């Protein structure tokens, strides 16, 4: 019935991207890139605890290496675009894969974090946009003056507004959730998993995600509590 027909030659990259597995690899790689950024960004931010000079100097330094900064920014933008494109396409596909849903469905083996990737991701995206508008561009900076170049001032005055901090803490927590599943999942997606390491990897993902959340939210909390002024 199905005598074998040879496939017309296709571009490897196109075929790869068209498969769900290929898209997941792209998500994993772009996710990993964003993760690296999240770490780097956190290390930079934590300098806020060392006082205004230190962090402002760091911000200034970043601006002096403009080309490199833009390279990083473009890479990240490409990563986000790919990550999101894949997300949207895969989500649509999953919908098609089950046109008639169940009247009742229980989850018995998956973590809350893993089931909510399609929520945590977009909220993190919304947050990133808000965050850029606030701290990078300065378009939204409620109840205080945004001063170009004075990162320390912008941070402190920004987070002193309780709902900015609350939104920040909420979004970062979701990012934590996203990473708690994502950091393990990306190993699966690129095929680097072995039963012997699974538990360790999952625990590490949990630990790293927790540390990242704690690290980030320590800043608004300290500011709200007046530890950093």
């Amino acid at each position, binding site marked *: 019935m199905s005598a074998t027909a040879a496939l017309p030659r296709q571009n490897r990259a196109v075929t790869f991207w068209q498969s769900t*597995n290929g898209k997941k690899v792209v998500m994993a790689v772009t996710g990993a890139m964003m993760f690296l950024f999240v770490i780097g960004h956190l290390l930079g931010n934590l300098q806020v605890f060392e006082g205004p000079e230190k962090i402002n100097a760091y911000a200034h330094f970043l601006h002096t290496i403009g080309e490199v900064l833009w390279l990083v920014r473009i890479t990240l933008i490409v990563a986000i675009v790919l990550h999101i494109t894949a997300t949207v396409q895969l989500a649509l*596909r999953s919908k098609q894969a089950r046109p008639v849903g169940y*009247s009742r469905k229980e989850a*018995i083996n998956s973590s809350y974090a893993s089931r909510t990737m399609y929520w945590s991701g977009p909220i993190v995206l919304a947050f990133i946009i808000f965050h850029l508008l606030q701290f990078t561009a300065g378009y939204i900076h409620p109840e205080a003056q945004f001063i170009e170049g004075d990162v320390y001032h912008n941070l402190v005055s920004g987070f002193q507004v309780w709902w900015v901090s609350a939104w920040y803490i909420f979004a970062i927590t979701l990012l934590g959730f996203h990473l708690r599943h994502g950091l393990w*999942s990306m190993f699966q997606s690129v095929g680097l998993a072995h039963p012997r390491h699974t538990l360790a990897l999952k625990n590490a993902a949990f630990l790293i995600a927790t540390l990242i959340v704690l690290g980030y939210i320590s800043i608004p909390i300290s500011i709200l509590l007046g530890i950093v002024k």
Partner: protein
Amino acid sequence: MKLTLKIWRQKTHKDKGAFVSYTVDHVDPEMSMLECLDVLNETLTERGEEPVAFEHDCREGICGSCGFMINGVAHGPERATTVCQLTMRHFNDGQELVLEPWRAKAFPAIKDLVVDRRSFDRIIESGGYISVSTGQAPDGNTILVGKETADQAMDAAACIGCGACVAACPNAAAALFTGAKIAHLSILPQGKPERDRRALHMVAQMNAELFGNCTNIGECTGVCPKEIPLEVIATMNRDYLRASWKKREDLEATIPPATEWSANRT
């Protein structure tokens, strides 16, 4: 005990289905879920109604014929157990059980709790084998396979192809099924020569069947009667990635999904 079974009834794939509730008195805790349906079906038949169609054959949890959702869980509440081996002692007197067929685009409905799983066969057909014709084999002991490797291959090979993984997956993905076969064959030395082709073909077929994508959340292993580990999916991804990286020009087209049943199609 007495149970209420709320069962999905659908005459053919063309008809609209609906839930119908039945009560079964005298359920013995020792009987299996399928025997409980047998009892219901005897009553329905005696009343001249059509019995509930459900798939089954071995009733020993190995042929992979049986399977449906019980209260939202594929194969019901017991881990590592198919519905044919699920005894009623796991339920309580007076409980309501909702029985629903597997639902996925790639598993079209046939009748009541019966669905069409030929998409699984096509995934195997596309490359889930080692190309060795009868008579070509060397002595069994010329191929040494370490015990651990053999055990690992066996863990993956234990798949019974029931479809619970697809049913339980929020994305209706067939990653565990496909991964299990790819892992079984690619772990063994005999399967290595065809590893790349196999991964490319099987993954292409899996995607052509309109299964969803895997998000690695693990609902599939949770319901798998043979507890196939989630890592087989990683093996599939690795083989696929590796194979995609290498250049290949000898790939074959995917097999067109057949949804018709007419015997005259051949």
